């Protein structure tokens, strides 16, 4: 008899048809989240607040409760939702345009209040859903549809580092940057997500996990090239690690 060593994690719809492009790390992030929720026995007690962007496509994956948020407002909505439902495990699922541009005030303010929910932040350095415009996290020199000559520090500012910014605040309990670009890092990412959710379950306050992700479609790369790009270029700008674990 053959042993089953790998299967779709619980929490992802059976027969789910993914909206994500081939090779997009969003799918790996979704999978990690479900595995951890399953392990913690929280799949049935979870509610995620969807950002607007490719993260919204998670709705085709996640078989759990959800509240859709206007672009950038997930942290405001998660704040009130969690305070009204302290027993529910609440996380937001947001991209970099959503969380660090239009939603910057909501993100920083929720973190500063120490709201007891978890943010899963997918940083792909670009506006994926709208077709590849500059994001707050886009690297200097990078060409996007709105920086056709490359991102210029004097005109566009330098990339924003959300973990480092949040690490200036007193309240956040857990801040980590991870990636799922290779198997050892995916394991670390899984551990970070688990820790973040555990922090929330213990009532420790705001927890934040940033995934350095890819966007092969709008980066104009094959999936494998995009992973190399993460390793060779992006991670130099966005170093991985635990910034805070109270």
């Amino acid at each position, binding site marked *: 008899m053959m042993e089953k060593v790998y299967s779709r994690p619980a929490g992802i719809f059976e027969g789910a048809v993914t*909206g994500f492009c081939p090779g997009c790390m969003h799918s790996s992030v979704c999978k990690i989240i479900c595995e951890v929720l399953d392990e913690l026995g929280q*799949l*049935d*007690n*979870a*509610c995620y*607040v969807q950002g607007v962007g490719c993260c*919204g*496509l998670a*709705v*085709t994956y996640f*078989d*759990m*409760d*959800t*509240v*859709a*948020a*206007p672009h950038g*407002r997930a942290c*405001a*909505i*998660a*704040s*009130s*939702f969690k*305070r*009204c*439902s302290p*027993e*529910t*495990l609440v996380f937001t699922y947001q991209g970099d345009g959503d969380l660090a541009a239009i939603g910057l*005030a*909501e993100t920083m*303010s929720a973190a500063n*209040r120490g709201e007891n929910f978890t943010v899963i932040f997918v940083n792909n350095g670009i506006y994926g859903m709208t077709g590849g415009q500059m994001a707050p996290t886009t690297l200097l020199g990078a060409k996007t549809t709105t920086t056709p000559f490359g991102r210029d520090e004097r005109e566009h500012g330098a990339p924003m580092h959300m973990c480092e910014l949040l690490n200036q605040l007193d309240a956040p309990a857990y801040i980590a940057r991870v990636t799922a670009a290779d198997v050892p890092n995916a394991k670390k990412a899984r551990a970070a997500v688990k820790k973040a959710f555990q922090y929330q379950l213990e009532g420790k306050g705001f927890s934040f996990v940033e995934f350095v992700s890819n966007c092969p479609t709008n980066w104009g790369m094959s999936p494998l090239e995009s992973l190399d790009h993460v390793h060779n270029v992006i991670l130099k700008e966005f170093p991985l690690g635990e910034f805070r674990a109270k």
Partner: protein
Amino acid sequence: MAEKIFMKGCEAVAETAVRAGCRFFAGYPITPQNDVPEYFARRMPEVNGVFIQGESEVASSNMAYGAAAAGVRSMTSSSSCGISLKSEAISWMAGANLPVVIANFQRGGPGIGTIQPAQQDYLQATHASGNGGFRMLVLSPMNLQEAVDMTWQAFELADKYSKPVMLLMDGFTGTMMEPVELPEPLSEEEVAAIRASKTWAARGKHGGPQHKVMCGPGLDTRISQEQMNERDAELYESWKTTEVEYEDYMTGDAEIVLTAYGITGRIAKSAVKLLRAEGIRAGLIRPKKVYPFPDAAYEKLPLEKLRGIVSAEMSIPAQFAEDVERVVHGRTRIVTALSSGGEVLDRAAILDAARSLMK
């Protein structure tokens, strides 16, 4: 009968909301409604409710959305330019079928305008409080007892239709003090039962089906945006028969009809008797809900026989008068009595407008 207490408008609204089972409020400071968030900040801890001072009107209205998505009776308030920032969340509430009560204590406009009372947000409240062509029930009290009664009613209506409801007030009704009789508070059991009855609210599946609070069809292919909008259009249409509310005061034998809403409606009402003392047979139509507009109130007047209608409001250019004109449709003369920018409408302006119709 409960005893009457002397209260400020903002506080009477906030206290009534708590009694009506509101257990979440988020707001952002703006004059003339700061007493609302300040009252909730003190009061919510006493009833195990949640108060959050948001980082902006954008955030606080989205917080109200989040609490409603959890099934809690939820409220936010602001004034004029702050309401513009809330329009994002209000549109999403309409799209996601979330019951939230939004109070607008109107001040001058456009833009930051003035902090004094105004009625400059009529068209925004009744016709387009956000993108997407949704409609809202809009209640507008002329005194604090009505503000209390309408606050209670707003929560009931929001839950009944699972839609946002607006309380359209102004700097006057928000900051003045009057004796009011407050409703008996709902018991904690009743508040819990209301929440539990919202079986659509997100809470975790807990062995049941998925709860999805979505604005529009999202990626669901079983229903289209058009179908959802058609369903809403039917609802809005039905309100024109089920939700119309107005006061008809002494129009029976009237040759001149005054019409106004909110605080201006009250000023106009006081003008009716003065005009009658002068021998002018005046009456009043005062919409209590400005959406849906009470077309029937004007339709049943002998319009062709009237000397005319005085439409009064604290807005220049006139906005409310556009709805009156739409219904009257040239069948009698309409003159306006207007003020703007924090000037309270002088009753003399209404009296003069009425007298001009006698000539």
